[in-house]
């Protein structure tokens, strides 16, 4: 049983086909890379998995349960969380609050919302649960090295720290599958190196599975155990990094046909 399965998924926007007939299997606790040139449809794949877009055709399964076109919040509650390519933190909230928000669904889902609402209004059963959430948030922040910044506004953080905070926030949802959309974008070399360690560490320590989109090839080839390459919405290659790196179709997609002939 794969953790996440995409079966022949297609996404069309009007006349434009962004993703065509993609089939993808992510196994439990692996780090899987999704790469491809700009506009290949990688983020669209993420958006379909997290329920932001409804696929035109095909099915998406998580632990053998169909999650195709569920609402994004429901999908998150089944155990998939994501980060955003163009950082979408809650700017006016503190770093700590950003992480605590992600735990809110654990107390306010499945019909418990109304009860919790009245508890909040009347302040009953408030502090104990709140302390639990705060402790878990602080723990996650220290895993990502952000604990010193807990009370800063999230918009005051550096770009690299904001990316890390996005990861912490996604982890706090309690998800077992993390979708990271270009986690290293905008980071310098040493930050990127640190990120590689961090992703490995959270995978091992928290028993997570990671599916990531990245343009930094060094990071992808060093970190991912398996890779899928998309171009113009289609799968053009799939396998271990060493295989994908040598695949002619991949080189063509990135560098053009002429380069391949010259290279030979």
């Amino acid at each position: 049983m794969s953790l996440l399965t995409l079966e022949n998924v297609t996404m069309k926007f009007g006349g434009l086909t962004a993703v065509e007939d993609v089939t993808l299997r992510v196994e439990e606790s692996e780090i899987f890379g999704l790469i491809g040139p700009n506009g290949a449809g990688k983020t669209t794949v993420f958006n379909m998995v997290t329920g932001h877009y409804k696929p035109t055709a095909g099915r998406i399964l998580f632990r053998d349960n169909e999650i195709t076109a569920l609402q994004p919040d429901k999908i998150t509650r089944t155990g998939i969380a994501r980060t955003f390519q163009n950082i979408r933190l809650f700017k006016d909230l503190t770093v700590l609050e950003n992480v605590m928000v992600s735990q809110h669904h654990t107390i306010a889902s499945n019909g418990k919302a109304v009860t919790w609402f009245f508890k909040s209004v009347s302040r009953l059963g408030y502090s104990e649960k709140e302390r639990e959430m705060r402790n878990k948030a602080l723990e996650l922040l220290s895993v990502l090295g952000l604990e010193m910044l807990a009370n800063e506004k999230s918009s005051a953080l550096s770009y690299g720290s904001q990316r890390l905070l996005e990861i912490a926030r996604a982890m706090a949802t309690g998800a077992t599958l993390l979708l990271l959309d270009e986690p290293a974008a905008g980071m310098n070399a040493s930050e990127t190196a640190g990120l590689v360690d961090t992703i490995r560490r959270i995978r091992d320590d928290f028993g997570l599975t990671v599916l990531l989109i990245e343009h930094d090839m060094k990071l992808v080839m060093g970190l991912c155990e398996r890779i899928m390459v998309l171009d113009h919405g289609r799968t053009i290659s799939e396998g271990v990094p060493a295989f994908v790196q040598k695949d002619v179709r991949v080189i063509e997609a990135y560098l053009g046909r002429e380069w391949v002939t010259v290279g030979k």
Partner: protein
Amino acid sequence: MDPKTLLQNFVNGLSLGSLYALIAIGYTMVYGILRLINFAHGDIFMMAVYFALFFVTLAQLPWYLAAILAIACAALLGFTVDRIAYKPIRNAPRISALITAIGVSFFLESLAVVVFSGIPRSFRTIFPQSLNEMIIIGGEMEVKYGREVIVGGIRFPVISLITLIVAAIALVFLWWFIFRTKVGMAMRAVSLDIQTTSLMGVNVDRVIGMTFALGSALAGIGGILWAIRYPQVWPYMGFIPGMKAFVAAVFGGIGSVPGAVLGGLILGITEVMMVGIMPAAAGYRDAFAFFILIIVLSIKPSGLLGRPEIVKV
């Protein structure tokens, strides 16, 4: 409803609808570009009527000259409102722009109260009386109370017909302007992608200003025709027609000019027909448009001719 009344109501509904359409175009064009509900639009409609009133009564101008000047002033007012109130907050969150627009709307209303006083005035004697006379098609002469009167027939006021003609001319002009002039092309480009258009060397602020002016001029035309039809002028007269026109714009698909026209016509006809069928419900006439709005928004928020918006993630 017998066929005669039906036709009668149809003509009246069509002419009311074309007034909604004229106002709705201004909403839809501004929304298409700035994603802003220009709350002040209904008040520009009101101001245009006061301008016309004062050009005739104080400046003693002939009515046609007064109308043209009033429409020009409305255009200028729309342009000014954009420059003073909306341009400084172009990059602010959308909700601040909306709040500002509400503020501008109330500012114009209270300005009208202060300058023109809040007491309703009559518009009846301003324009030629013949506009309010009835056109009667068919019917029979009968002698009643010692006078000859026409009984039966299809009757509607002259102004209904004039409204239709003026609205049609305005729409043809608008079509020419949007599709056959350079400024029109720039407007279409800006509504598709504001940033790219400005990178192409188009002065986006000027185009937006022109859009406000054009929309306001159309609202001005609508306002004057409205005031001839319902000849009571007061500072809050723009609120209800403005809101209804907005409903028409949403109904037709906000951002789409043909949609605004279609939405306006449908709203006008259904409103008149509803009152025709259920005279008892006449008091609820103004609530009707809002019911339509809530229904349209819950079933098909993108309206009849609008394109659904894709939320970018």
